[in-house]
């Protein structure tokens, strides 16, 4: 699991790549704690996110819960079809807002 980050105003854009699963969820949570110190609004660019399992989804949900306490949010962008299917089956697509592009996701905060 790799992360790149960039900022657009008060929105932190994180490029996720690799697998978000039981092996990488601890790392993700550690990183998220660091990111949360400087932002509460996130866009996760999932273009290179290949796979998510229930542990990975749990990490995302924990992050969402933490940001919502600060009136923030996590929005997902460019989710590939397989991850999209996983989110649909687990009903996570009812919880996260999902956008076709990073730009649209960023624009949704305004």
């Amino acid at each position, binding site marked *: 699991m790799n992360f790149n980050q960039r900022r657009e105003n008060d929105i932190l854009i994180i490029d996720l790549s690799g697998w978000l699963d039981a092996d990488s969820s601890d790392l993700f949570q550690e990183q998220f704690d660091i990111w949360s110190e400087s932002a509460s609004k996130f866009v996760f660019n999932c273009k290179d996110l290949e796979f998510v399992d*229930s542990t990975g989804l749990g990490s995302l949900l924990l992050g969402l819960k933490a940001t919502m306490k600060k009136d923030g949010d996590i929005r997902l962008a460019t989710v590939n079809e*397989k991850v999209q299917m996983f989110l649909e089956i687990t009903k996570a697509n009812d919880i996260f807002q999902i956008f076709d592009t990073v730009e649209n996701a960023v624009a949704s905060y305004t």
Partner: protein
Amino acid sequence: MTGNSLSLVAQQKIEEWRPMKALIVMDEARCGWLRGVIQNNHPGMMPFCNKPLLEYLLDFSILCGCEQLRFVMDEPGDEIEDYFDNGSKWGISISYASSRASDTLEDILEKNSTFCDEPTLIIDGFCFIGYSKNEDYDSLSDHRPEEPQLRCGSGQMLIHQHGEPLRVLHGLAESRLEVLPLEAIGDCYDISMHILDSTSGEYVLPGYNNEAGVFIGRNVTISKSTTITKPVMLGNNVQLQENTVIGPGAIIGSNVIVDTGTSIEKSIIINNSYVGTELKIKKKIIHSTVAISAETGTSIRFVDDHLLSGLKQCAPRKMPRLIVHWVLACLFFVSGIIPALLFQLLLKKRETHTILRHNGKSLSIASLQLSSNSLVEQLARIFLVDKVMLLPHVLSGRLDLVGNKPFPATPDGEKQYADFNNYLPGIFSFSESQSIEEGDFQEEIAERYFSANRRFWGDLQVIIKTFTTRW
């Protein structure tokens, strides 16, 4: 010609060309793509509304008047022969033949020339036949060039008559008949949904169908809080837990559990699958841990067993055999319990260990470990004292009287269990009756052979042989 002569000629004509035999040819080149999507089954056994594809083709062949049918495949599967056997269940004689991947249809006909000595209907390729059980296909073999040919990208229907060239059949203006391609998982999905939605009355479908659009198999458990919207089809041994929402357009196979709060709509759940809690399955095909989008064919494999997983099919425990085993166990118990208790008092060699039952659950048993060290132990072995002490487990239904040598409830034992189809542990085992040493590789072969060839008289022979071997 008089009217009577015409009808006689017509009758003779019908009898001359009406196909008496059918050849179903399914080559890996055209059906192999499905193996990459739905694993563990031959593509010909792909269920459409809980009925294998090959059974639809068989039904159609019978409708055309065929009395003998042969399956020809270059990669046959045991499950096909296990399911269809000799065809007696359908009143047709079924045989099986192999072909090579490089064989053309002409090569196959030549190799099966003895079978194809009468007019033969040939269904070649990987395709679905859209027909109606209520219609008449007597004139199928007539040449009707004005009607479209019965062929598609992945299959065709032909007629073979001795002395005439192979001919692709044509459709019938007055009867429903079409050849539908099976080239992608979406084709399978669309056909299944179409049958469920619109044409279920045209086919013989499994399940109890007292209400239009609802098919329910045997041993189906439906929670009171389950919502069912038709059309819906449930296979055998299906469990629908609390607050599940099933349908419209749900096809659920056999041995499926749908756990609490899950909704299934316009989807197919293939046999032996577990669908976890609070999931939303819409326009998907689920097989064990794999979810496939019906629209795009994209598939994902779930690694979380609590979301999607496969269910191992337990070996069926047939009631007549169970009853006979129970009666025999009673007789042995009544006649042997007192001597067995006496021997047990003398020997005091009871040990407790845990074995796996037929459903994978653990069972703790206390048994006598007998060797040939002392005269008492030898006598105890001869009088099957160790078996008598295990009879209460047979009487309570936890074990069979004659079955496989039980696997220990250890990681190795569980691995063996997962790899062993039709595992049914018993207190008498085939390998012991054959005096095969424990741990010998022959033991596994013998046990698997026994599982695959179980017969009532074979069970009796195992008991008798064990007794005589110990004597």
